[in-house]
C-alpha cells in the first residue's frame, strides 16, 4: 500500500441535487399535512418490508453475508486509489473509455460533450442515482438534448414534472389513480379509456417507450457495481428497460460514483445476494446486465464511463462517516424508518432521502451547507435502519457524530448567547442545589395559568416552541412534589400522625448539609 506524502488538502464538497432548498423541519411540516402521501407511503413501505423479511429469513447465512459485505466495502475504501487504477486499466484494455469528474458540473459537461459528438439530440436513460445527483436531465435540456427516462417509476415522475422521492421506487408517493391521471394528461397518444390497473398502466408505458428503445443511438446509465479485477460494470434492474438501453444503442455513457467498486469478481456473489433481497424483497431481480468494455458484435461500440467524485473524497475524509460510502442504494433503511414513512422523500431535499440520505447528503456537501445541517436530526435514533442495512452501516452512530459536528461548526459563530445557552445556564444554576430547585419549583404552578380549561399547554414561547409544534404539554400540578412532600411529612397539620421514616430524615439532613456546603 502506498502512503500519501503530499500536503493534506481541505475536503472539496459535492454540488448538484445534494443541497436541500429548505431545512428538513420546514419541509417535513408541510409534507406531513398530505394525508394521501402518508397513506401511499404507509402501504408501500409496509408491503416491501414484509416481503424483505420473508426472503431474508430464507437465507441461513444472511448475517455472514452482511459481515462479508461490510468488510469488502471497508476494504474498498481503504484501497480506493489502487482499486480505481486497477479498474481503469482493465476497463480501458477492453475498449472502454474512462473520464474523471470532480463535481456535478464537470460530469454534466463530459456527458453532454460525448452526446454532442454523436450528433444526437435524444438519449434514453436507465434509472440512476448518480445522474439524479448531478441533475443531468436538466442540464441536457439546457443544451438542447432530451433525455427519456425509461424506468416506469422514473417515467411517471418525469411526466409529472415531479422529483423522485425514494431511491428504489421513485414514484412511491403516488397511487395508481394518480398515475393514470398523469398518463392521460402527459403521455402523447394515451388511450382515453386507460384504467388504473397496474398491468394496464405498465403496458401503456411499454407502448410509449418501445419506439424510443428501438431507434435510440445513445443511452445513459448508472452502475450498481464495478469489478476492479476484470473491469466489469453491472446494472441490476427488473423491467428490461436497462437491458434495452445497455445493449441496443451504439453509444453507452455510464456515470458512477468512485465508491461503487468491488475488488474482485468473487465479491459479486456477496452483493448479488444482499442487494435484491434488501431492495425489492425478491430472491433475485428479473434482469442483471454485466459488460466489460466493448464486445465485438454484441452491444454498444462506444462505451464510456464517467467516474464521479462530487464530495465522495470529502465524505471519505471523515473517519467516522466514511462508511456511509458503503451504501449500495438498496433503500432498505428508508422502508423501515418511522420518520421517512411519515414525511416521505421530498422532505429530505437531496437526491438521497431517508436515513442514509440524512448522513450521506451532509457528508457529501459538508455540514456547513446550511439546509443540510438539519438532516442528521431527522431521526428518532431507533436503530431500525442499522438492523436493515445489508452492509451494516451504523447510521445511528453517524447521525449522532454529525450532530456533534454540526454543533461544533456553529459554536463561536454567534456573538450573543443563544436561547439555548441562556436556558442551559439557568438550568445549571437551578439544578446545582436543592434549595434553588425548590425555589424554581414554587413558580411552576403558575404554568397552570398558561394552560386553558383543558389543562393543556399548546404553545410554548421561544426555543421551546419546537416541542409544542407537534404535541401538547399537560399543565403542571397545583403544587410541586417538594411542597407536597413537606406538607405530608413535616407540615404542622399532619406532623404528629405521619412521622418521617429514618431514611427520609437522613436524606433531608444530607440535602440540607449539601446546601450549606454550596453556600446556599
Amino acid at each position, binding site marked *: *500500500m502506498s*502512503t*500519501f506524502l*503530499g*500536503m493534506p488538502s481541505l475536503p472539496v464538497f459535492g454540488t448538484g441535487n445534494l443541497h436541500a432548498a429548505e431545512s428538513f423541519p420546514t419541509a417535513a411540516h408541510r409534507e406531513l399535512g398530505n394525508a394521501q402521501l402518508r397513506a*401511499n407511503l404507509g*402501504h*408501500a413501505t409496509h408491503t*416491501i418490508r414484509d416481503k424483505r423479511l420473508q426472503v431474508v429469513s430464507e437465507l441461513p*447465512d444472511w448475517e455472514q*453475508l452482511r*459481515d*462479508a459485505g461490510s*468488510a469488502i466495502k471497508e*476494504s474498498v*475504501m*481503504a*484501497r480506493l486509489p489502487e482499486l*480505481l487504477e486497477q479498474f481503469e486499466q482493465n476497463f480501458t484494455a477492453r475498449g472502454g473509455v474512462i*473520464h474523471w469528474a*470532480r463535481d456535478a458540473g464537470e460530469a454534466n459537461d463530459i456527458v453532454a460533450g460525448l452526446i454532442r459528438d454523436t450528433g444526437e439530440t435524444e438519449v434514453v436513460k436507465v434509472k440512476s442515482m448518480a445522474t439524479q445527483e448531478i441533475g443531468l436531465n436538466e442540464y441536457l435540456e439546457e443544451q438542447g438534448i432530451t433525455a427519456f427516462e425509461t424506468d416506469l417509476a422514473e417515467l411517471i415522475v418525469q411526466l409529472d414534472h415531479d422529483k423522485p422521492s425514494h431511491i428504489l*421506487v421513485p*414514484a412511491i408517493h403516488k397511487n*395508481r389513480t394518480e398515475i393514470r391521471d398523469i398518463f392521460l394528461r402527459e403521455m402523447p397518444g394515451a388511450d382515453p379509456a386507460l384504467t388504473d390497473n397496474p398491468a394496464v398502466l*405498465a*403496458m401503456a408505458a*411499454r407502448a410509449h417507450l*418501445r419506439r424510443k*428503445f428501438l431507434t435510440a443511438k445513445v443511452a445513459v446509465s448508472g452502475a450498481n457495481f464495478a469489478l476492479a479485477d*476484470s473491469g*466489469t460494470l453491472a446494472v441490476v434492474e*427488473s*423491467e*428490461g*428497460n436497462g*437491458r*434495452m438501453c445497455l*445493449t*441496443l444503442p451504439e453509444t453507452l455513457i455510464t456515470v458512477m460514483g*468512485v465508491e461503487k467498486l468491488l475488488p474482485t*469478481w468473487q465479491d*459479486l456473489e456477496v452483493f448479488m*445476494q444482499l442487494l435484491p433481497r434488501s431492495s425489492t424483497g425478491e*430472491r*433475485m*431481480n428479473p*434482469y*442483471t*446486465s*454485466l*459488460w466489460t468494455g466493448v*464486445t*465485438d*458484435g*454484441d452491444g454498444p461500440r462506444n462505451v464510456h464511463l464517467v467516474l464521479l*467524485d462530487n464530495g465522495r*473524497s*470529502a465524505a*471519505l*475524509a471523515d473517519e467516522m462517516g466514511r462508511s456511509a460510502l458503503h451504501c449500495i442504494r438498496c433503500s432498505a433503511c428508508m422502508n423501515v424508518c418511522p420518520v421517512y414513512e411519515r414525511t416521505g422523500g421530498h422532505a429530505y431535499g437531496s437526491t438521497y432521502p431517508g436515513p442514509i440520505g440524512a448522513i450521506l447528503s451532509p457528508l457529501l456537501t459538508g455540514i456547513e451547507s446550511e439546509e443540510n445541517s438539519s438532516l442528521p436530526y431527522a431521526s428518532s435514533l431507533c436503530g431500525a435502519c442499522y438492523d436493515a442495512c445489508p452492509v451494516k452501516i451504523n447510521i445511528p452512530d453517524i447521525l449522532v457524530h454529525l450532530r456533534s459536528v454540526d454543533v461544533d461548526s456553529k459554536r463561536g459563530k454567534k456573538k450573543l448567547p443563544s436561547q439555548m445557552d441562556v436556558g442551559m445556564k439557568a438550568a445549571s444554576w437551578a439544578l446545582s442545589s436543592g434549595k434553588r430547585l425548590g425555589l424554581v419549583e414554587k413558580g411552576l404552578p403558575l404554568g397552570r395559568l398558561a394552560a386553558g380549561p383543558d389543562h393543556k399547554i399548546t404553545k410554548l414561547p421561544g426555543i421551546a416552541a419546537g416541542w409544542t409544534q407537534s404535541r401538547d404539554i399537560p399543565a403542571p400540578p397545583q403544587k410541586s412534589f417538594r411542597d407536597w412532600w413537606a406538607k405530608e411529612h413535616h407540615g404542622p397539620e399532619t406532623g404528629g400522625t405521619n412521622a418521617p421514616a429514618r431514611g427520609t430524615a437522613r436524606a433531608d439532613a444530607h440535602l440540607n448539609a449539601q446546601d450549606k456546603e454550596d453556600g446556599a
Partner: protein
Amino acid sequence: MSAREDILGRIRSALRDAPVAPQIPRAYRTSSELDHDALIHLLVDRLVDYKARVCVLDAAEVPERIAELLADARSYVIPAGLDPDWTAGPHFAPDGDRRRVDSVSAPLTVAELDGVDAVVTGSAVAVAETGTIILDGSPNQGRRAISLVPDYHICVVNAADIAGILPEALRRIDGTRPLTMISGPSATSDIELERVEGVHGPRILDVIIAR
C-alpha cells in the same frame, strides 16, 4: 492538474489515517449440498414463483416441445450456434420461412428483431435457489439483443448446468463476457409495489429443463 490526478490526490489525502483493509470473512455458504433431483425441483419451484412457465424433459423430447411452444409463432429467431437438433426433425419441416438465424457476423437489425414473435436460446448456468438463468453470449445463446426484443423467450437449460446457489454459479462463468442474468420474465413493481409481469423485456418466459 487533470481531474484524474486531482481526484486520486483528494482520495489519498482523505485516507491519510492509513486505514488497513480488513480480512474478508467468507463464512457464508459457497456450495450447496443438493443432489441432482433436488436442484431441478428447486429451480422449477423458483421459476414458477416468478411466473415463468417450466417443464422438465428428457433431452430427446426437447425438439418436440419447442415445436409445440412455437406453434402459434408466425416467426422466431435462433442464434446460429443453437443445438441444431432442437429445431430440427419432422416437427419443424418445412420451417424455413418463419425461422430467422442471428449471429455476430450476420446480425438481424433491431427492427427485424422487433418483428419476430419468439426466440429460442440455450443457457450457460442456472441458479436453483434464486431461479436465475445466466446467458454468457456463447454461440448457443447469441447476442444479448435476440433474447430481449422478441416478446416470447424459450430458454433451454441443461440439467447439468444447474448450480445450487449463486457463488457456485458465478465460479462457472467468465465475468468478462457480456452477461445477462434472467430471473423470470420482465416485471415491474413500480405502481403500489404490485408486481406486474412484462414491461419492456419478454413478457413470457418458457424454460425447458433438459435432463
